């Protein structure tokens, strides 16, 4: 049903437009006044805007949680109308409208919360000291690049006050724009507004990856991100178009079939092949945005952007939009079992695939990027095996610990003047104690260490995967070991062992603006999991019961998934699947085992790691070079397309234009042929005149004879 904004029915939910608008206002303010007036204070409008949005998000969360059952407020099938946007037919308008339910509320709080912390963190991160020593390091930006580009996070031990780096205003304007876009995406009540948010977050990602646009790598990475996403969006857009094409006969009068409530209520009228087509096309978009196989290639390169951007956009929020969308479209996906199976398969394979790559990387941010891809794979696996609430739960916990890890890596990078290659430093635990402590907490959560947030959510997904199919569950477990291993490989290489500091840098712990978000996120990484579990008396880990308040809150939204699961395995079995702690013990043990292996290889016996590399050189090279996927894409797609386009251009000039030239040559040739007649010589005119008269006379004579 449709409720206009401003009505009493909407109640507290009337605050919803504020959520995207406040950050947009902040961004606009910075955009207009940043370079002239605000300058180094440009973070304030954006931080205040996001804080306002966070407050509004909490109001919405409260309103949804306290909504009376049976009223439209806070229900997934209620649409809140803002204004008419554009129209395909007389009498039918695509509206700008919102859908506000439990899923929306959770996403809004997560997005605004993480954004606020990241914005606060960025206040210091995006500053440089003027007394930096521009020195080239392998893996880091070269000396020339540093001179041209102030993105080098110099140490702050000098007496000079750090100054905002070039583009400070631009950075915060983009961040505000991003929060606006992401909140619009989440709040959207129809597929078109979703698409708007979808493309807009892609734009912000593009702009922020390319923030250091003078670095060719950053410019290329930005373009790659946009284009790979466009490929996914191509499918996504087609999905929307097919949705309209096939559903419009069923939509009630005057309602757009692209509104969620209409689409989900009428989708069952289509044939299964139609629903499957739509679901797979929509999933294309998710694959692009959430960096799944085969469209994941942009995310590792996206690490060219500033670290807080990686934390916010490329770990905690934007990349989870695909998961959000698939969960949101549950009504469509559950009616397309083939599509769901593909979702699960893509998720599982991506999780494993990315984890194997992460094992052989040295760039901290890239390890985290592959880890993000892998964790997003878990989420899709969760949705695919009908555990949509677990997937959203993992999305929620992942936002905390992955943002924490990225910000931690950023803190390291800040301290080391932009160096992030693990081979160049080590043993930083004494120099960066707070960063170290929080980073380890984040790493434990990511590795699935018992009682931390990642443990609960990941375990639920693995559990559901096993209930669905043992192969999927096994892949989940293997990935869990790998995750624990590569995470702690990174932790030990960076923080354990003897202190190794690159020459010319003077590492120092970051300032308060950066440490406070780290600490808060660490608290979240530990505690976020507990909103999703029950506590009760019991033995070791026995006091934890999965599917806690978080899942109950989310239940109305993931109803299609839950209903399908119940229909498949029966209500009893579905309930029972959540119990039984064997798997919980196994995954806890596996996580610890992974950490231990990393400890042995990278702390105790460093030479073993080297020997392992040398023992399997091919495997190591393949993993280190990321399965050569980029090279393959370049050789199989980009170059042929470029070459054939060059050929087309040649065809355009020679064939297509040649035809035009040939046509235009006809009169030219005719003129050339008759031109000699007009030679200006009286004698020839006389001859031709006489000849002509003779011909005429001849003809007249011939005609008169007959």
């Amino acid at each position: 049903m449709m409720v206009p904004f401003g009505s009493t029915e909407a109640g507290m939910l009337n605050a919803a437009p504020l959520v995207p608008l406040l950050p947009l206002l902040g961004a606009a303010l910075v955009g207009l006044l940043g370079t002239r007036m605000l300058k180094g204070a440009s973070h304030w409008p954006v931080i205040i805007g996001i804080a306002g949005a966070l407050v509004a998000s909490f109001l919405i969360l409260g309103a949804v949680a306290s909504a009376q059952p049976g009223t439209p407020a806070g229900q997934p099938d209620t649409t809140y109308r803002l204004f008419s946007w554009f129209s395909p037919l007389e009498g039918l308008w695509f509206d700008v409208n919102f859908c506000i339910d439990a899923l929306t509320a959770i996403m809004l709080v997560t997005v605004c919360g993480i954004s606020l912390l990241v914005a606060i963190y960025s206040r210091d991160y995006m500053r440089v000291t003027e007394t930096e020593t521009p020195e080239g390091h392998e893996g880091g930006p070269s000396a020339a690049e540093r001179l041209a580009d102030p993105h080098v996070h110099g140490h702050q031990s000098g007496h000079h006050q750090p100054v905002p780096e070039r583009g400070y205003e631009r950075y915060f304007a983009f961040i505000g724009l991003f929060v606006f876009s992401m909140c619009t995406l989440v709040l959207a009540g129809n597929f078109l507004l979703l698409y708007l948010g979808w493309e807009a977050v892609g734009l912000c990602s593009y702009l922020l990856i390319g923030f250091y646009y003078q670095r060719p790598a950053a410019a290329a990475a930005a373009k790659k991100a946009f284009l790979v996403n466009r490929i996914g969006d191509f499918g996504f857009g087609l999905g929307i178009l097919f949705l309209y094409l096939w559903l419009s006969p069923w939509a009630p009068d005057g309602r757009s079939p692209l509104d969620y409530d209409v689409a989900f209520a009428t989708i069952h009228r289509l044939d299964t092949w139609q629903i499957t087509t739509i679901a797979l096309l929509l999933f294309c978009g998710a694959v692009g945005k959430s960096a799944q196989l085969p469209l994941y290639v942009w995310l590792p390169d996206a690490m060219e952007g500033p670290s807080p951007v990686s934390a916010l956009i490329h770990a905690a929020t934007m990349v989870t939009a695909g998961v959000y969308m698939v969960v949101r479209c549950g009504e469509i996906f559950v009616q397309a079992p083939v599509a769901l199976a593909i979702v699960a398969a893509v998720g599982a394979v991506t999780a494993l695939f990315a984890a194997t790559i992460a094992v052989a990387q040295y760039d901290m941010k890239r390890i985290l990027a592959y880890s993000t891809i892998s964790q997003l794979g878990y989420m899709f696996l969760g949705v695919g095996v009908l555990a949509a609430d677990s997937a959203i739960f993992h999305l929620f916990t992942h936002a905390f610990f992955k943002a924490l890890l990225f910000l931690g890596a950023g803190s390291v990078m800040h301290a080391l003047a932009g160096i992030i290659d693990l081979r160049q430093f080590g043993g930083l635990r004494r120099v960066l104690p707070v960063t170290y402590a929080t980073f380890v907490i984040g790493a434990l959560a990511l590795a699935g260490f018992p009682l931390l947030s990642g443990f609960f959510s990941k375990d639920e997904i693995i559990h559901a995967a096993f209930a669905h199919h043992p192969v999927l569950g096994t892949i989940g477990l293997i990935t869990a070991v790998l995750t624990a291993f590569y995470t702690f490989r990174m932790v030990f290489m960076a923080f354990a062992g003897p202190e190794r500091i690159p020459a010319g840098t003077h590492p120092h712990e970051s300032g308060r603006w950066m440490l406070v978000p780290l600490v808060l996120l660490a608290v979240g990484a530990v505690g976020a999991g507990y909103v999703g579990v029950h506590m009760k008396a019991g033995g070791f880990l026995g006091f934890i019961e999965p599917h806690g308040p978080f899942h109950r809150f989310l239940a109305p939204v993931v109803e299609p998934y839950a209903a399908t699961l119940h229909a498949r395995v029966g209500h009893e079995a579905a309930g029972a699947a959540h119990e039984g702690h064997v798997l919980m013990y196994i995954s806890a043990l596996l996580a610890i085992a992974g950490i231990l292996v990393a400890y042995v290889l990278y702390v105790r016996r460093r030479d073993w790691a080297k020997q392992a590399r040398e023992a399997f050189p091919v495997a190591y090279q393949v993993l280190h070079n990321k399965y050569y996927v980029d090279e393959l894409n370049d050789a199989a797609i980009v170059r042929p397309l470029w070459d054939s386009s060059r050929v087309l251009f040649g065809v355009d000039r020679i064939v297509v234009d040649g035809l035009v030239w040939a046509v235009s040559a006809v009169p030219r040739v005719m003129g050339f042929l008759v031109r000699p007649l007009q030679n200006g010589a009286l004698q020839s005119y006389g001859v031709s005149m006489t000849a002509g008269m003779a011909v005429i006379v001849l003809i007249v004579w011939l005609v008169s004879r007959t």
Partner: protein
Amino acid sequence: MLFLQEWILTLLIVLPLVGAVAVAIAGAGGRPLVPRSGENHDEPRGPRLGQMALAFSLATGVLTILAVALFFTATSETGQNLARAGGFALVQDLTWVADSETARRQIDFRYHLGVDGLSIWLVALTAFITPLSIWASFSGIRHRQREYYALMLLLEASVIGVFCARDLLLFYIFFEFTLIPLFFIIGIWGGPQKWAAAGKFFLYTFAGSMLTFAGVLYLAWQAARQGGVFTFDIDTLYRLQLTEREQFWLFLAFTAGFAIKVPLFPFHTWLPLAHTEAPTAGSVLLAGLLLKLGTYGFLRFNLPMLPAATQELAPLVAVLAIIGIIYGALVAWVQDDFKRLVAYSSVSHLGFCMLGMFALNQAGLTGSVLYMINHGLSTGALFLVIGMIYERYHTRQFDKLGGLARRMPWMAFFLVFFVLSSIALPGLNGFISEFLVLLGTFTSRNPLDGWPAGPLGAPYGVIAAVGIILSAVYMLAMVQRLLFGQLKEPEHTPDTSGGLRPDLTRREITILTPIALACLILGVYPKPVIDSIQPAAQQQVLAWVYAGDTDAAFAGAIAPRDAGAPARSAGPGAKEGGEDKDRLSRSTVGFSQSGFATCFSRWGEDQSPGFFPFSDFSRIPDSAVPEVTHR
């Protein structure tokens, strides 16, 4: 008020004409308004003539705002709001040439103007873009300013005339007249190959429109045969009864002129050269306005006048449009000249425009008209920005420039903004039109309101949608190569003579800002525009396209051929029965069943013997032949 309603369109045409004359006279006075040594003049002292032309075009713009307001408040005799009803408003209808005494057959050439929801926005676009282009020329045009600004105003007048004309001959006159100012603008103030470009542009488009003119004459002659008046009045011509064979050939004749103008693949090769060689304002007007004359011609004449041929040939046109979309995008991608890149992007974009139009439904047509406006804004603005770069660096080669975002942050902002608008980022204008075009293409076969299925369908849409990816490919490649990376400039640049500075001047920012705002507003709240386009698309185009296919129209009376007045009542909404409906039903329904291929084989079966439609002369009683054809 009534006076204004009748005369405002004329004023819109006359005011720039007066301006052109005034500029020409002022410049010729011999007084040192524009000293010949003015080549190095900087801005404040410089272009007085330019300011004069700007004033005239701005005044036209203000009048246009008034015209839009009048259009939206105009009501019909029954008190209906014409904008909402999709009708024509601000009509002025004067008999111009009427030769009623010498012949039984009257000659009826009228000065008949009017705008509906389809044309008012194109008029507004013209009046919006022209002053900005004139203003943008202040720094670039340093010689023969008198002629330049006079020609610009002349061009504005003729383009507005095209969009307002309600008489086919008047339309044709304005349509052809646009060539003359642009020919000189390209030829005199263009780049190194300017005369080659100008000549090719003129001859190519002119050759095509000669065929169109033949079609125009044939239509008028048919009008004389059927209604007794040798008329060019568009409303009358819509009601002509044309056999499928006539429609087929007329469609080709009209297409010859319009497809070259659009340009539809493969008739586009004049465009890259003309766009690249033209001075900035020339490119802006060419891309922003002149290309729309072609699509507008299709919309106004091919579709409503030749419905059977339109329905039959729509798949063919759509295929050409789709080839244009993909081909144009791929060729744009590999250009090493960024002005030519934007030129080829027009081939791709206009393909979308044509595709939506030939989906023959509301979504597609609305999208197509919106696309014309949006393309005018975003591509026009892209040419402006590129012109600003060119004025500073005197090169259009990618490999000579790079990293300009550092040097020209304002320029970078606007370039990225208009690129985003051009690649249809939701929230900006391009998205809505592109989405509507694709939606129209997808749903073309969905029957609506009792209409039969349209000609296109989802497969066309799927292939065309590849253009969404490709447009991002070439546009972002341009952004990357021009703006990002290390700063790279030719020696002795940026050229800051003529009041320029490395980054955009205040004047240039003021030129680009209104366009950017328009893009934003049209992207977020296009409701007023769509509200008027949609009913007009419905009433002025679709109702005619499907007139022969619905029962209501079958019931419409078709006046007997020799009744002495043009047949009037076969149009939408007509209810009475008629005698000649068999002819119409045979021609439209039979045609659409026969298929394009059989169209050729069916010539022989048709009643008339000849190959060419004009051989129909043999069937006509002598008394029916209008005298004018013998003159």
